[in-house]
């Protein structure tokens, strides 16, 4: 397999040693409860507590925020987060619960926040003690993000916020939210400003969090209502009217194309985790009776399974190739495809699994006869969250067409 270690700098090599040893000694015990597919579907305090304990331990061991400066709670190292991620992924440690904090809030606060704010917020973000959520989408602003209407009105050195954010994952556990607000209604993009706002401490005092129930029947995301929430001007990131530019920092990192590598961990081997890879399709097909043989003998299903295997291998190949400068003409071309590919391949794999199951794909989680515990219909429905959230697949294709292929901006 890929031999990352051969390319390590001396700093990375020493760090890798340390990380490896620590993980070997501190692999967390099996979770006491069934964990959801991703951190975005954490529903209970019990699930959260298990995952928070893991993130805190990993942070204390120096595996989270490695490349951020020490002053803001980071490790002060150079390009070591990638190494930490490789080792955590290899060891299949649990995922981290503060996924929005690490992937989006941290780089945004780091690049655009005042020094004092960074020092106050980032250490508890990295440790997972403060869970973060993201307030971008609104009932009237989805793909057209720049049309957000939630308004911040200036009142002395304070701001008063009124409005309505939706699809807010983890808001029910969040201490803080990164939020895109309108501060000027006379211009579109230039009328936006970017803030961090308290959530949990402001509940009932200007903030209401209400769960939204997803297509799967799970909760996990929310709507958040602001009614005269007062926040300090020091919670503003960057200048007034620069909200759109700050939001681009967030989105770039969300899509895996940002400067700072997001701490990543995950892929537990225990029974509570799901395997939704194309390899799982082969296993499923072998176990499914069809026409006097198994689904793995059906030529059409074989062909479709191989198509998924190939797409998955191609995506992994893209990630490998994106690190070889000589094999790409445009450095954004592969990173900007990541989110689109990952979400669409997962969706098609789950959809194909249901076709393989045939009639049994009608059986859901609570049915004892459901193949693979009913995970495939669940995964299929859930997959639409990923092809819609963080810029729909249609928006992703606009971005690729415009930023990579240089085509005119679509309306």
């Amino acid at each position, binding site marked *: 397999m890929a*031999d990352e270690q051969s390319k390590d700098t001396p700093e990375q090599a020493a760090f890798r040693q340390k990380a490896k040893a620590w993980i070997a000694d501190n692999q967390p015990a099996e979770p006491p409860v069934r964990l959801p597919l991703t951190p975005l579907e954490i529903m209970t305090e019990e699930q959260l507590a298990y995952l928070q304990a893991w993130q805190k331990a990993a942070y204390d061991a120096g595996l989270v925020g490695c490349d951020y400066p020490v002053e803001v709670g980071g490790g002060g190292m150079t390009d070591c987060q990638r190494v930490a991620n490789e080792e955590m992924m290899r060891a299949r440690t649990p995922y981290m619960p503060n996924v929005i904090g690490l992937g989006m809030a941290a780089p945004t606060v780091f690049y655009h926040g005042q020094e004092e704010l960074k020092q106050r917020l980032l250490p508890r973000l990295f440790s997972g003690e403060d869970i973060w959520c993201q307030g971008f989408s609104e009932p009237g602003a989805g793909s057209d993000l720049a049309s957000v209407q939630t308004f911040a009105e200036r009142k002395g050195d304070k701001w008063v916020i009124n409005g309505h954010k939706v699809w807010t994952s983890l808001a029910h556990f969040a201490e803080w939210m990164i939020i895109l607000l309108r501060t000027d209604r006379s211009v579109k993009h230039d009328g936006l400003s970017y803030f961090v706002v308290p959530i949990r401490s402001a509940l009932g005092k200007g903030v209401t969090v209400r769960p939204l129930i997803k297509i799967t029947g799970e909760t996990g995301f929310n709507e958040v209502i602001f009614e005269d929430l007062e926040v300090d001007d020091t919670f503003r990131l960057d200048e007034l009217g620069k909200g759109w530019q700050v939001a681009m920092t967030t989105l770039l990192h969300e899509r895996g194309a940002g400067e700072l590598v997001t701490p990543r961990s995950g892929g537990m081997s225990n029974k509570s985790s799901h395997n939704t890879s194309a390899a799982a399709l082969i296993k499923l097909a072998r176990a499914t009776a069809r026409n006097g043989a198994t689904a793995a003998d059906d*030529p059409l299903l074989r062909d479709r399974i191989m198509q998924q295997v190939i797409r998955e291998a*191609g995506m992994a190949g*893209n990630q490998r190739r994106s690190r070889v400068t000589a094999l790409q003409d445009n450095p954004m071309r592969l990173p900007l495809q990541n989110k689109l590919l990952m979400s669409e391949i997962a969706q098609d794999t789950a959809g194909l699994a249901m076709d393989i199951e045939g009639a049994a794909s009608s059986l859901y989680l609570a049915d004892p006869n459901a193949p693979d515990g009913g995970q495939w219909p669940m995964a299929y429905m859930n997959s639409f969250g990923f092809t819609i959230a963080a810029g729909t697949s*249609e928006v992703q*294709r*606009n971005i690729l067409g415009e930023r990579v292929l240089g085509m005119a901006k679509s309306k």
Partner: protein
Amino acid sequence: MSQPDDFGFTEEAALLKSSAQKFFSEHFTADKLHALVAADPSPDRAPTVQWDQALWQQMVDLGWSLLAVPEEQGGVGMPLVGVAGLVEELGKAGFPCPLLATLSASYVLAACGDAGHSALEDIAAGETATLALTNASGSWSPADTGVTASDGRLDGTAYFVQDAGKVSRLLVCARSQQGLDLYWVAANAPGLEVHQDAIVDLTRDQAHVVFKGVEAQWVGGAAESVMDAAFPAIWTLHAADMVGAGEWQLQTTVEYANQRQQFDHPLGFFQAVKHPLVNVMIAIDQAKSLVYNAACAVDCEPGKAAQAAHMAQASASDMAAFASSRSVQCHGGIGFTWECFVHLFFKRQKHSEMLWGDAAWHRARLAEILIDAAA
């Protein structure tokens, strides 16, 4: 042996790729290709071999035709990953020449062991070659060859022989009493007749080759296992050629979509045009990554080479079909004409798609490895 994370794509490989890119952009742009091969649009035109031999000689002088010949036989012995980079650029230029055929023959000869050495030395000395192993029904399985061998003489007909009108040697798969063997024969040998096929693709020539008691040099037995060893490299390079051609189709079509105005906007403004072209890019990138995956597997992990190469060619063939259809469709009315260059690459890709097994065939073989063999 483990695979290097960077596919083993060294500075030397990068240099070869960028110098090939420079070579073709200086000497062989699409307008030159059109002038060279598309003078006669008549669907009834007689088959001809149209190529720029002087430019090909420059490529031979640069050493490109002997890259796959091992150093021991006077070649370069370049890892496949570097050769794939060159072939990608070749596909982007659509340059008619026997490079892909000669490289493919080199991999087969290299898998022949000692008996293949003298033929490899011929290639190192500047000879060119193509493979002749397909029967009249177009089977890619060497066991189905329509050529027989007896006492070192070949009889029968090989079909779908690529670039047969440009090469000086043929590497022939023939059935003998001992089994399946490989023979090395001069293209102008007595009793050997090259009958050019009338083909759609203007950037290649293709022939059926008739052997009537042709004296030939035996270069290897057990041809099925020899071909099994060589096929992954052949499929990978073939896919690399399609990837390069696909990139030409994408860039050319995007350029047109950015410039052509309708309804007061460039075509690319409309998502009905923009999104399919993004999908073409995604298909190209998948195929390209799989090509370098496969090349690296051939170089460093031969046990994984066949499955990786099946993935690369299945992906590249589907991409070639898709990129071709979109390149013509998105060019609109002009794309339907002979004067617009897109038809050159459209036809090359439609031809490539079927060579050495189409996408469904490769997926069926992949399924045998991943579903049946692993069961």
